[in-house]
């Protein structure tokens, strides 16, 4: 039996929950939310620290509180949720194949679809580390789940490779729980995570951060017994003679996140080489008509507020697409990275709404900068540009009416 719905949302983290709420509030009658876990909320459930929703709700929530607020809002809408439901396939004709103990094998035909599957943790750099492969090597997010959801400590003497936000958060969390965090080692010469996390998670607990350092060997037979740390040169190669042996029982990897796009690929959605997520317009529509995307499956965002903002847009425009009221009379134009821009999102402008651009700088600039969006030639000033803090700028729709191919975005020193 094929079920038919107006809007199907895949994933119930902050992006999916917000998208489902907005799809309903924008008039979509049959909205279905699919979640592979036992409960709604996604990764927020294990992010027990505060700092969520400062911008969106003007509140300092923890992850679970933020999730519960959205879940309560969703419950009021009457949107149907299928839990324990794993989506296994997605076609460009918007047919979803899914499996669930309760509903069995499912086929769902949706007028529009919102992808909100989130991201995965990178492990790539760790695979290249010479040495043994004992127990005790975890990604930071997996360790976070062990501690905060399952209630046990993954190790007692911990080295953290990479200074992504989850690694920083786990340095604090593990210290509080009685583990000794020896240090955070970052291959780049600037930290990966937010400055406030460096202060509140490392400095507050006297955990040292070593920039331009990496792990060059893992030691141990059954369990991690230690690692070798080396300095790296300006081309990120380990410098011979700088090796230092450190005894530890656990190595955490916090080396970045990557959008989870197994389903997007199956549907033939065009992906961006820079964000590794679908190429979208400001309405969050992908290259496949009627399939929208939001949150960390589209690009890895720094703040949950940004994730929710893309979720709101995706839900709203998915509802409009489902009701047939989304016009497509103008061809979208490309938005391309100019000077000092490593990546940007969205990558196309479809003339439907204001353009909210998320930009990641390639190199840090610790002085006032001008962000230029041209055409139309809008100039927006910011106090600084840092690769570890996404810039967000808004260009009103009216200004973009005459935009021509391509729109170029640059970050320039003032």
């Amino acid at each position, binding site marked *: 039996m094929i079920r038919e719905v107006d809007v199907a949302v895949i994933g119930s983290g902050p992006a999916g929950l917000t998208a489902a709420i907005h799809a309903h509030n924008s008039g979509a009658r049959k909205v279905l939310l699919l979640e592979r876990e036992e409960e709604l909320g996604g990764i927020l459930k294990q992010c027990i620290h505060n700092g969520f929703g400062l911008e969106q709700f003007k509140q300092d929530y923890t992850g679970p509180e933020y*999730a519960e607020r959205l879940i309560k809002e969703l419950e009021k809408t009457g949107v149907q949720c299928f839990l324990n439901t794993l989506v296994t396939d997605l076609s460009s004709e918007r047919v979803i194949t899914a499996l669930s103990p309760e509903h069995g094998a499912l086929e769902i035909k949706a007028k529009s679809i919102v992808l909100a599957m989130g991201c995965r943790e990178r492990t790539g750099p760790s695979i290249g580390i010479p040495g043994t492969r004992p127990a005790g090597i975890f990604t930071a997010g997996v360790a976070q789940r062990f501690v905060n959801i399952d209630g046990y400590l993954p190790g007692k003497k911990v080295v953290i490779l990479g200074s992504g936000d989850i690694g920083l958060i786990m340095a604090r969390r593990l210290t509080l729980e009685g583990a000794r965090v020896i240090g955070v080692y970052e291959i780049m010469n600037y930290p990966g995570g937010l400055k406030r996390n460096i202060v*509140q998670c490392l400095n507050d607990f006297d955990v040292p951060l070593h920039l331009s350092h990496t792990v060059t060997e893992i030691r141990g037979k059954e369990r991690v017994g230690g690692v070798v740390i080396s300095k790296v040169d300006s081309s990120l190669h380990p410098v011979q003679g700088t090796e230092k042996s450190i005894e530890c029982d656990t190595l955490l990897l916090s080396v970045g996140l990557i959008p989870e796009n197994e389903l997007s690929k199956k549907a033939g959605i065009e992906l961006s080489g820079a964000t590794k997520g679908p190429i979208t317009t400001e309405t969050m529509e992908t290259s496949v008509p009627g399939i929208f995307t939001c949150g960390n499956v589209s690009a890895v965002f720094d703040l949950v507020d940004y994730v929710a903002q893309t979720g709101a847009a995706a839900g709203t425009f998915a509802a409009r697409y489902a009701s047939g009221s989304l016009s497509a009379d103008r061809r979208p134009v490309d938005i391309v990275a100019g000077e000092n821009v490593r990546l940007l999102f969205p990558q196309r402008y479809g003339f439907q709404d204001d353009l909210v651009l998320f930009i990641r700088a390639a190199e840090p600039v610790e002085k006032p900068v001008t962000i230029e969006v041209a055409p139309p030639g809008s100039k927006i000033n910011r106090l600084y540009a840092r690769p570890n803090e996404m810039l967000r700028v808004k260009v009103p729709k009216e200004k973009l009416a005459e935009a021509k191919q391509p729109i170029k975005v640059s970050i320039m020193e003032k």
Partner: protein
Amino acid sequence: MAAEKKHFVCVVCPIGCEIDVVYDGSEIISMEGNKCEKSEEFVRQELIGPMRILTTTVRIQGSRLPVIPVRTDKSVPKRLFPRMMKQLRRIKLQAPVNMLDVVARDVLHTGANIIATRTMLRE
């Protein structure tokens, strides 16, 4: 007490001003690097004794999961974190627990309560 130079990174907002302060043990002699007055208040508190929200988990019985996330309902002195963690390790809750339920009152006489940050049903 002789005047001392201290360095702070303000965490009031995402800018993260790097602030250099000269402090004589009771008064701020000079302060450089902050872009607004809010960081002045932040630095003053950091000098007296840093205050933070503590977020952690406590044990729970009768629910699907063995631990439930909690936090202090206001900032508490950071130096009390180890003692608070020790005290919280002794707590064992019974499901159901609702979000914002008080788990422990006036912990270590700080005036702060420990509250649950999610709902956990009985299963």
